[in-house]
């Protein structure tokens, strides 16, 4: 798993990370919220259900209790027994009705009282619209009452009763003090009785069902419900379950042999819960889309510059230094891109400079080679001049020709670097020529430590300096002095530097010329090709910190110094 995430592209890792951080809390909080909300509502509904059911049971028990009391009072009254034995006297009957109505005042609106004789024949009833017929003495309610001493309750058989509204009957036997049975007091409870009893106890969506001791329903608060409608409610109540939208509870009283079942709709109906679920689903969906959008934007914002950088790096690796990243961001990634741009630009420039340097070197070399062509011919010619002057006995010309020839030979040799002693030898040849030309005008000296004689210098590097000293420095002077000396020292980087100076005691260099020489990159100047070449050669070969330096001596004259790193063969 971890390996899988590691191998994922950076973009997707950010994306998945953002999604996980945003969605998991959303999902969990959503699910928990719905569950806790639902559970608290259910708890509340269950409490209401229980209290409502208790109220129903209280009312039923109260009704049955007062019926019991009325029955027992009637049964205990000797006059009732007397009327049953002797029904011929009208005043007895009147008394009985009076007694009957007195006894049942409390329960009058809920139960009809009737008195049957032992043969099941109806004798008295409080029900004015009575359709009740005689009752079979060995069947149903009368038989049940005959087998019990106290009051019994009986779910009236719908197939046997003449009045289908009567759903429950209660009866107790009417006996004399000696135990002789004279009849039965029978109470009839109709559906309306229970409707009135429960009328304030339930709202339209609730269902109250009463079951007899055999578990058969005898009352349902919804008159339109038939057996098929009631059966599933009984089933749910038996499992004390909760179906969508309904809660069930039941209670029973074995004394009166009934079970009351209450079906109550939950406060939030099933469609409402569904709507809630749908809403939370859409919120989650919205959250997901928003999160996806932001995560995509964020991951693209981070990963795109990085991939651009990655691509640019690859191009640079392939040699394309012209690549640039265009960005207007000001953050860390923007700075990174700008740094990259600067880096490639610097690299490009450096490369360009190096190439140019190489090109310049090649050009200088070419010129050098070209200059080597003529001297051969000149050398041969000089040799001819020398011999012809000897033949003609002119002593100066052979010396001139000889020295010139030596200089030429050295200048056309193929080696670019020679030792300092070799270079000084060349200078000596040149001085001999100049001495013939300017007889007695200057004195030439060398002060070179012998340790430095084998140091390598570019050939013909000193000749232009000596020429300048003679032609310009000592111009007009009769007794000039030219000295070449060399020293070494170590710079801050530890490199040993060789300095060779050509000094004269002449008129001194003019300041403009001195500034030109001492400038870091002097431009080409007509008439000063020699000096320019020396500067170029030193800078190209050894670097910009090396070169030519000119200064005027305070006591007169000029010192021109070349500096270059010490190299030995």
């Amino acid at each position: 798993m971890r390996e899988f995430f590691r191998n994922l592209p950076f973009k997707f890792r950010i994306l998945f990370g953002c999604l996980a951080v945003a969605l998991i809390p959303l999902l969990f909080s959503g699910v928990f919220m719905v569950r806790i909300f639902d559970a608290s509502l259910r708890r509340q509904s269950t409490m209401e259900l229980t209290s409502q059911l208790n109220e129903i049971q209280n009312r039923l028990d109260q009704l049955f209790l007062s019926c019991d009391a009325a029955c027992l009072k009637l049964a205990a009254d000797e006059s009732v027994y007397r009327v049953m034995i002797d029904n011929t006297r009208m005043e007895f009957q009147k008394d009985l009705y009076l007694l009957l109505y007195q006894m049942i005042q409390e329960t009058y609106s809920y139960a009809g009282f009737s008195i049957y004789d032992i043969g099941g024949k109806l004798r008295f009833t409080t029900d004015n619209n009575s359709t009740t017929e005689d009752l079979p003495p060995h069947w149903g309610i009368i038989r049940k009452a005959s087998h019990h001493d106290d009051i019994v309750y009986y779910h009236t058989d719908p197939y046997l009763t003449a009045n289908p509204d009567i759903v429950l009957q209660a009866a107790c036997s009417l006996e004399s003090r000696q135990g002789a049975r004279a009849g039965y007091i029978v109470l009839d409870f109709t559906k309306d009785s229970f409707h009135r009893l429960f009328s304030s106890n339930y709202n339209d969506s609730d269902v109250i069902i009463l079951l007899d001791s055999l578990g058969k329903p005898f009352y349902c608060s919804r008159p339109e419900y038939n057996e098929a409608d009631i059966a599933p409610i009984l089933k749910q109540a038996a499992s004390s379950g909760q179906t969508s939208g309904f809660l069930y509870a039941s209670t029973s009283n074995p004394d009166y042999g009934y079970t009351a079942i209450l079906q109550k709709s939950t406060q939030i109906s099933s469609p409402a819960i569904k709507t809630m679920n749908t809403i939370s689903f859409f919120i989650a969906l919205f959250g997901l889309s928003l999160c996806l959008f932001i995560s995509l934007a964020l991951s693209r914002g981070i990963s795109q510059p990085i991939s651009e950088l990655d691509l640019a790096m690859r191009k640079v690796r392939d040699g394309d230094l012209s690549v640039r990243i265009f960005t207007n961001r000001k953050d860390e990634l923007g700075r990174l891109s700008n740094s990259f741009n600067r880096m490639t630009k610097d690299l490009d420039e450096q490369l360009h400079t190096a190439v140019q340097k190489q090109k310049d070197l090649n050009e200088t070399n070419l010129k050098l080679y070209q200059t080597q062509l003529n001297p051969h011919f000149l050398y041969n010619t000089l040799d001819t001049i020398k011999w012809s002057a000897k033949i003609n006995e002119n002593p100066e010309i052979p010396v001139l020709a000889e020295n010139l020839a030596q200089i030429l030979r050295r200048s056309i040799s193929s080696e670019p670097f020679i030792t300092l002693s070799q270079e000084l030898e060349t200078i000596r040849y040149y001085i001999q020529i100049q001495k013939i030309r300017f007889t007695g005008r200057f004195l030439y000296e060398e002060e070179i430590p012998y340790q430095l004689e084998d140091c390598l210098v570019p050939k013909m590097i000193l000749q232009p300096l000596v020429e300048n000293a003679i032609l310009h420095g000592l111009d007009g002077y009769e007794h000039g002095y030219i000295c070449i000396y060399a020293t070494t020292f170590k710079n801050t980087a530890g490199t040993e530097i060789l300095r060779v100076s050509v000094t004269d005691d002449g008129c001194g260099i003019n300041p403009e010329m001195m500034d030109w020489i001492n400038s870091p990159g002097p431009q080409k100047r007509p008439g000063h090709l020699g000096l320019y070449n020396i500067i170029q050669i030193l800078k190209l070969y050894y670097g910009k910190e090396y070169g030519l330096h000119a200064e005027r001596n305070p006591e007169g004259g000029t010192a021109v110094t070349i500096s270059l790193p010490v190299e030995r063969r």
Partner: protein
Amino acid sequence: MKRKFLAVLLLCPGLLTGCSQYRTPEPEPVIADLVVYTYQEEMVCSPIIKEYQERTGLTVQVINGTYEELREQVLAGTLPEICDVVFGADAALLESAPECWEPYASPEASAIANGFSSAGKLWTGFSARPLVIMYNTRVVTYRELPEGWNSLLEPRWHGRIAFMKPTLSDVYACALTAAIHAPAAPDHYVEQLAANTDYTAFDSLSDLNQAIAEGRHFVGVTTEENAVSLISEGADIDYIYPQEGMCVLIDATAIVAGSSNSDQAKAFIDFTVGIDVQYFLTSAISRRSVRTDILPPSGLSPLNTLSYTSVSLQDEYEKTIKIWNEVFPSTSEERK
């Protein structure tokens, strides 16, 4: 790491399903002390079963089937799987499969009239239902009253005879068998009857009763009890007992062989032939009792004053149904 991931994976669906609907546990089925199979009408069996439960405190489960379904169950021999006792079924049907029943002689047997309990103690009679030919008094004048089974073949009733499929009703299985075996019965009685009924047959006895009461059909066969009940409701009908001899349908109760509640079943049989139930039958349902010590419902003659065919015809039921199946479906399909 893998286990943790797995645990989270398992947790998520748990949470999600947690917010779905509360599941309700299935209620455990109530184990009845006695399972009764019957095809008697609700108004007959319901008060009796209720009274039995009231008196004994036992739980009785009632399976309400039909005559046809019971016949199939008996033929297939699958009754022991579904019930302990068969209540109020046609005695002929019970007699046709003696191996299905556990013999039992009720202590009340001495009070039962002859012929209303099984010779082999396989079944005990519950009620007697004589078959009658019922007619609508508005369309059948006193001069043209039907007399017996052969009257049903008379052309004047063509298309006006209400007859029910004997495969669906014990009443008609018995009636048709009695008619075929009547002393003066013509050959091919069933074919002639089918032609006279215009090849139509009812599927329900109550529809048939209704059809005659409303005068859509003129004559038909029904039980004495049905006819009396219709008359008491004010319908314009009357009935005769067939002159060939009255055929009595015996509703009987038998214990299913192999029943696990055999004792309760026996107690139930004793209850059904007890004097209370038998008296209840005659007084509340207007049905004849099988007991000799109980008078028939008011307005009916005692059985012994009428001539009635013995139940020996019952063996012929299957043959009758076979003949019916041969004649009736083919002719009705041809007509279609």
